[in-house]
């Protein structure tokens, strides 16, 4: 060996006990789907079968909702708040104890680098339970009135990009507020949710408080349309979010929607360039760009754009693409064949519309779903790659001349989930933060998440917030609202 090439450092799979098949988790037990259907979940890095999971249809959803309703009225709503909180603490602790196992299963099922599932997804998921556990007996201080009440049964539908973390974002506040839930994990990443069902059993959580039903979009629609659901919490595409909004328009159901984004990451001339480069890389290549708040539009002030792009390209050549189980991998597998197709399709319009594509040299594995880290320079606002959410490791680079122009370009989007600001000038940062129409503003940092920090979007990026006191409010009834 004549140079410093990192030998492969794979995390062991031995810790993951993935069963060959899983049923649905309803009423505290794993049960077979009523029609006995199941579907495969695979490892997107190898296309190998991981397990077969039950396919829930309308009848199964009905059973799950009934179980949640019964648990709500008979058990959960009668439990002292303090005790409710203790269950959440237990869950948090078990997640911490089994963190390594969860990280391995998450990486196998999702394709994300083990470094990220180990250092981000799983610890944050546990932190969400820990944070919300403390709220359970303090709801009267949450700013929604003196006697806040739960909504009842909540239907929750989560995406495949952060499977366990999104589950935690949904279940932890719902339970803390006193609701019971029926959660549907994403079709391609059901495993950590099913593992979480085991955690609920280990924690002794009363049967039916958490129900987990696996399936596809049709399963999700059945959950949304079930008449005995009080609230829908959904994270996913804007398209499906709108469909949900329509589905519930003639009902009393409320909804929290965390939808798409096309975040601008704005680099001003006075930025700390090296840290900005890290922020840009973290903004778009974290989790293969499968992040609704990804900094997918890089806006650079023109007088530093050459320097930034040159440094960015150098930095991109250091990104280690490949086996997600390798502890040194920075960019893992694309989660599914369908998603890979979509990334190809939108990115190809970038070439067709005249933007300049660049990727560092990198060998992609022969099996599995892969896309190299990619940037497009010479992008203008009208290009599709500057407007549509790609949800992959593809960055569109645009430039601006004055701060006002930068903000104007940043806000020129139907989305408003997040935005980044890079500048060393305090006053300018606060000015820009105020102008940007987005729910989360990262100044001199990017893609930071915390259970105490509300997250959610403006405009077509969704309804409501998750996390923090503001997120909790979405799971409590308000006496200020009326229904006719």
């Amino acid at each position, binding site marked *: 060996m004549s140079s410093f090439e990192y030998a492969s450092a794979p995390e062991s799979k031995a810790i993951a006990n993935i069963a060959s098949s899983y049923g649905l988790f309803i009423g505290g037990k794993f049960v077979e789907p009523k029609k006995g259907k199941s579907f495969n979940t695979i490892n997107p890095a190898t296309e190998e079968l991981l397990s077969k999971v039950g396919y829930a249809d309308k009848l199964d959803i009905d059973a799950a909702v009934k179980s949640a309703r019964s648990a709500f009225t008979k058990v959960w709503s009668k439990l002292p708040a303090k005790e409710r909180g203790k269950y959440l603490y237990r869950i948090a602790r078990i997640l911490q104890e089994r963190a390594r196992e969860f990280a391995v299963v998450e990486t196998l099922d999702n394709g994300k680098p083990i470094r990220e599932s180990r250092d981000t997804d799983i610890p944050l998921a546990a932190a969400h339970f820990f944070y919300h556990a403390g709220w359970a007996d303090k709801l009267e201080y949450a700013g929604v009135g003196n006697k806040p009440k739960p909504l009842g049964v909540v239907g929750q539908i989560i995406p495949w990009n952060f499977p366990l973390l999104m589950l935690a974002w949904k279940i932890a506040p719902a339970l803390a507020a006193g609701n019971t839930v029926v959660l549907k994990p994403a079709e391609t990443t059901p495993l950590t949710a099913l593992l979480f069902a085991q955690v609920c059993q280990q924690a002794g959580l009363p049967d039916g408080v958490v129900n987990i039903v696996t399936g596809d979009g049709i399963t999700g629609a059945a959950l949304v349309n079930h008449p005995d659901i009080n609230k829908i919490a959904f994270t996913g595409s804007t398209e499906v979010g709108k469909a949900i909004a329509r589905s519930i328009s003639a009902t009393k159901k409320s909804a929290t929607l965390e939808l798409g984004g096309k975040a601008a990451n704005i680099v001003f001339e006075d930025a700390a360039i090296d840290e900005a480069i890290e922020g840009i890389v973290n903004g778009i290549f974290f989790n293969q760009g499968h992040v609704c708040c990804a900094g997918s539009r890089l806006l650079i002030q023109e007088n530093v754009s050459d320097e930034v792009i040159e440094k960015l390209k150098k930095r991109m050549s250091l990104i280690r693409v490949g086996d997600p189980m390798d502890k040194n991998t920075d960019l893992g597998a694309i989660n599914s064949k369908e998603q890979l197709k979509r990334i190809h399709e939108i990115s190809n319009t970038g070439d067709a519309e005249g933007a300049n594509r660049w990727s560092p040299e990198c060998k992609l594995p022969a099996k599995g779903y892969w896309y190299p880290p990619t940037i497009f320079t010479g992008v203008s606002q009208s290009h599709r790659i500057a407007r549509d959410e790609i949800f992959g490791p593809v960055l569109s680079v645009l430039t601006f001349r004055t701060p006002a122009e930068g903000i104007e370009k940043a806000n020129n989007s139907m989305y408003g989930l997040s935005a980044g600001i890079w500048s060393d000038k305090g006053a300018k940062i606060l000015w820009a933060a105020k102008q940007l129409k987005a*729910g989360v*503003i990262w100044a001199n*940092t990017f893609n*930071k998440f915390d259970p105490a*920090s509300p*997250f959610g979007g403006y405009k077509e990026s969704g*309804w409501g*917030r998750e996390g923090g006191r*503001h997120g909790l409010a979405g799971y409590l009834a308000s006496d200020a*609202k009326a229904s006719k």
Partner: protein
Amino acid sequence: MSRLDINKTYKLFIAGAFPRSESGRVYEIKGANKKFIANPAMASRKDLRDSVVAAKAAQSGWANATAFNRGQILYRIAEIMQGRSEQFVDEICALEGVSNKAAKIQVAEAIDTWVWYSGWCDKLSSVTGSLNQVSGPFYNFTTPEPLGVVAIFAESKPSLLGVVRTLAPVLAGGNTAVLIASESYPLPAITLSEALATSDIPGGVVNILTGKTAELAPWVASHMEIDGVDVAGLSKKQEEELKLVGADNLKRVFRFAPTNNPERILSFMEQKTVWHPIGL
């Protein structure tokens, strides 16, 4: 022979001016005693469009005014209404057929509602924002910001209070408004707009239309520049239809209990969270 009264012409209120409907249409309003009172304008979808343009144009100025300034302006509206109390009382009596005493109470409540929401303007962040204790070297705060343009279908009765308690909170949060007055009790809304015109509220921040709710509601629902809707004056059916179409741009649609509550302000605001590292 007694002197002939000068009757008021009830027009629309758009961008700080009082135009007639571009459609040239009016409709007849009779009092509780079945006698003719006025022919207010029957706004068209184009009047709605113009109102939204005006509201959008006024939005950033109103949102970026200091909260203290917004509070003062809302308070000024209360002052002006106080001076015109008699007119509001007469109008309410004629329209609703209620007693003078009841009308007076309603006017007083409407005025006090402005005062109440005026006081909220510069307390929203303190009461509803937060400094979030994240796990890391970051300063992280959440603060409410206005949604943008909010359409309001005002309640029918109480005819004046129903307008004020929907409008004031929308303005307090920094939104601009297009208010569609109750079809059957529209006059206090127009008289209010005359008070607004002499207050310090910038043109376009409030726009008031009179006309047929059923005709305007679908255009409100589908207008992509309208960010939120208070459906107080819509039927359940109309509300459902509006929500269905309003999903196209994920309009924030709400109906509130008939009380004053800061949630009326906050529902039409977005919470913005800002992160910044703490370091040398």
